[in-house]
């Protein structure tokens, strides 16, 4: 039977197990300098005794190994990917082309600004565009991702308060907040204080007022929040926070809902981070790279990281390292420039109206899918958590499916894999039981949304007859459900040669999972 199994043909073998002593994909360039004996150049004490055990494979087999691995990934160019909070929008191929231009890809980060004017102008233009979109005047592109943007925001908050001689100790985060928010609070040396959620899904104003005192340094908010709901009371919230002298931080992961419609700055936020790998379509790469630029108000500006890209009188662009009040550097050089190129290209392609259209269609798609999933046969099993018009995403509860069909959200998600669609984000936000967080994004056509609704319906109908099918799903994936508990209990986090000495060219062939049968 296993011969009939399409998976039989790609057994799992690591590149290390494919290694055979003597093979090579690399040939060194001509040695053109004197072959001085190494011990004249390196002290014995610092010389490696045996080479690192890297694989020895030819180029053809190296390519096949990674091409075969790639085919085991589900990806955005394959199908629907409604992973809530991740904004899996289409990644235009143009962006990869322009990012690869030698003038971008082969530019050294310490190149004299005089010879990097194009790069600095691109960053300067991107700063301007992000500032306009956020409604805040000053931008730093440096942070490497959203979570580093958050940390930057809190370090700026700290610097701001300390500059005013204040030492505040607490940061407020709603109980719907993404995990990076509280984690960031701790890293920034603050103490987390949770704020509750009101029946309408927004911030519980009374709870907020009660917890906001002059020991509070900041309130971190996502708006629309992780329930996909826009907080109608945003102005009151801003008022409460500002009256207490605290800063208001905007987690920009959900910015894709409001571009051109409303701006965090106009809502009263002091600091905003952007996820360029979400709203501005940097490909996610299986977990990065991304970039988390921040935009801030005038009172925060003095503390921004160094260097800043500035335009000097003669119209040329400079890197300003001389920022006495700056919090310093979060990372090396000027940030993830390669990401800036893609996001800038995206902004150029869409323009102002295009960005506004993107947000409006994102919200349209979410509300349409929400309506389809409220239909009879689905809605009674997966009720919407907070029944309001949603923004770019929405959250369903699997509570009823669990109660009435003995079907957990995890089972529904795993069964989706057999249907060739990526499951939504599950079990987040925490306050929704058996949550399914669904974000279709604006680049999905109606057919994909309809198909997803039909898949959900089919899974629920199937479960009504036999829940076991979903409980044992998936069936058609390269592997089936994996033993995660076992993996954590006895962690195997690197490959090790089997018994035989690693030098033994035959080790791989002897190794269980390998051998020619593994081709």
């Amino acid at each position, binding site marked *: 039977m296993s011969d009939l199994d399409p998976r039989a043909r790609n057994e*799992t073998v*690591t590149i*290390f197990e494919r290694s055979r002593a003597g093979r*090579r994909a690399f040939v060194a360039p001509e040695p053109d*300098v004197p072959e*001085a004996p190494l011990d004249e*150049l*390196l*002290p014995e004490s610092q010389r*490696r005794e045996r080479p*690192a055990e*890297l694989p020895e494979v030819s180029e053809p087999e*190296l390519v096949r190994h990674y091409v075969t*691995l790639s085919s*085991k990934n589900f*990806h955005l160019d*394959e199908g629907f990917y409604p992973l809530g909070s991740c904004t899996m929008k289409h990644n235009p191929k*143009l962006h*990869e082309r322009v990012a690869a231009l030698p*003038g971008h890809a082969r*530019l050294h*980060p310490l190149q004299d600004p005089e*010879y990097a004017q194009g790069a600095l102008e691109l960053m300067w233009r991107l700063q301007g565009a992000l500032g306009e979109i956020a409604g805040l005047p000053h931008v730093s592109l440096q942070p*490497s*991702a*959203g*979570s580093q943007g958050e940390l930057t925001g809190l370090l700026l908050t700290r610097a701001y308060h300390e500059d005013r001689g204040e030492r505040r100790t607490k940061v407020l985060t709603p109980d719907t907040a993404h*995990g*990076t928010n509280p984690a*960031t*609070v701790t*890293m920034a040396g603050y103490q987390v204080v949770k704020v509750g959620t009101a029946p309408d899904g927004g911030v519980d104003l009374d709870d907020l007022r009660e917890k906001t005192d002059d020991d509070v340094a900041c309130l971190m908010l996502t708006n629309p929040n992780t329930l996909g709901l826009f907080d109608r009371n945003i*102005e009151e919230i801003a008022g409460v926070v500002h009256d207490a002298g605290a800063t208001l931080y905007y987690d920009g992961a959900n910015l894709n809902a409001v571009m051109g*419609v*409303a701006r965090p700055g106009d809502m009263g936020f002091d600091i905003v981070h952007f996820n360029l790998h979400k709203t501005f379509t940097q490909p996610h*790469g299986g*977990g*990065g*790279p991304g970039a988390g630029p921040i935009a801030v108000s005038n009172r925060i500006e003095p503390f921004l990281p160094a260097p800043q890209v500035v335009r000097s009188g003669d119209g040329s662009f400079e890197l300003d390292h001389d920022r006495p009040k700056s*919090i310093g*550097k979060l*990372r*090396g050089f000027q940030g993830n*420039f390669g990401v800036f190129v893609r996001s800038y290209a995206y902004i*150029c*392609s869409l323009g*102002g109206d*295009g960005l506004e*259209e993107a947000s*409006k269609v994102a919200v349209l798609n979410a509300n349409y899918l929400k309506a389809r999933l409220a239909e009879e046969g689905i809605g009674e099993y997966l009720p919407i958590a907070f029944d309001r018009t949603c923004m770019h995403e929405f959250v369903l509860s699997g509570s009823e499916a669990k109660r009435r069909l003995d079907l957990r959200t995890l089972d529904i998600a795993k069964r989706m894999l057999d249907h060739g669609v*990526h499951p939504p984000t599950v079990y987040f936000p925490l306050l929704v039981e058996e949550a399914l967080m669904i974000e279709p994004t604006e*680049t999905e*056509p*109606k057919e994909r949304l309809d198909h997803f609704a039909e898949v959900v319906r089919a899974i629920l109908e199937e479960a009504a007859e036999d829940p076991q099918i979903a409980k044992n799903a998936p069936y058609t994936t*390269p*592997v*089936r459900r*994996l033993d*995660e508990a076992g993996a954590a209990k006895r962690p195997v*986090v690197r490959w090790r040669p089997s018994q035989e000495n690693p030098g033994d060219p035959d080790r791989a062939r002897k190794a269980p999972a390998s051998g020619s049968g593994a081709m």
Partner: protein
Amino acid sequence: MSRYTSVTDQDLEAMLGAIGAGSLDDLFEDIPESVRLNRPIDLPAGRSEQEVNDHLGALAGRNRHCDAEVSFLGAGMYDHYVPALVDNLLSRSEFLTPYTPYQPEISQGGLQVMFEFQTAISELTGLPVANASVYDGPSAVAAAGYLAKLETRRGTLVTSRGVHPHSRAALRTHAAGYGMTVEEVPLTAEGATDLEALAGAVGDDTAAVFLQQPNFLGTVEELGELAEAAGGSGAIVVCAADPLPLGILKPPGEQGVDICVGEGQTLGNRLDFGGPSFGFFAAGERFLRKMPGRIAGETVDVDGKRGFVLTLQTREQHIRREKATHNICTSQALNALAGVVYLSWLGKRGLVELAELMLRRTHYAREALGLEPINPGPVVREFAVHVPDLDGLFEQARTEGVNPGYRLARDYPEYEDGLLVAVTERRTRADIDRLASLVRERERVAA
């Protein structure tokens, strides 16, 4: 309608109907009038692909990249040859477009890549466990500082001035958050970390000591001695290392280093004006459950088939929230993929051959230039020299399409006339000789 969206008029009508809304704007009724923008975003109108392509091409055309001059710039990122297969593999949608592998059954490609990456980093550093990447070298250093705080609860961090200036800056910036002070240990007259000063700086409140191999000046540090002096009073010894020289240098893990981090750009990644690249983070077994970032682990599926998952997630923000060992979420998976593909391309012998080539060219270059060295001892991939007429050299060299390297004064006032020269397999003997002749020319001019 933009070229990335698909809503036809018919679609719009049908969709609004299903929603029960009269217009698109109805969907935004929750947003108070008072915070609406109510005007178009003030940005240029959208453009065709061709126009955007040309605009970005024009901007790129105004940057002098590493093929447009003979560049000896290094100081943290280096012009190495990236094999074509890396570009090709990274361009595959299967690797380029997925999110972090939250659904392992349909993410085995990415997860196995992480596992292989962790193995390669473990081999290079001589430490048993490694994560799947952090943002970059400097933030990896800062992350090690945070781990040291969680582990030791001590108050100070000590770093050699041989550690990259950006790493020290990032360490200071982060430490200001998690409430630690950072002390610096000077370099000796030979440009190596001052062993005695280091021993003196370390005390019972020292949470971690930071070293770099080779150090910022290219000096090959006596890592063993330094680590011994550093670790004495229970401080965690952290070493930032350049992975390519590690092909011939004794692994930090074999010399008393607890945590080895570093910048991964040199492993198959582009220069990209500074990013994205990746940082790696390797450590001793005992730190496994305190590590930052993603870690892939091997396991089996319900049929007993070998597979991989994200493991030990109880360290991470999405599970542990304020108790997480770090706040990192999105990291640098695609760049780490480039790293492990590049290392597999070099292979066991290739890495050694490349590192030896760099070592020899570095020493050849130092001699060819014939300038007074700042760090006369063993160096690899980079070295520092005094240049009497630094401005003059730069002026002439730049007009002749040569970039002599990095001016140390920017970060090291103590090396006012210091030049940091980097050498890779891309810089041939002819390139080096060209720089040398420029140097001699300037000397004649000066004389």
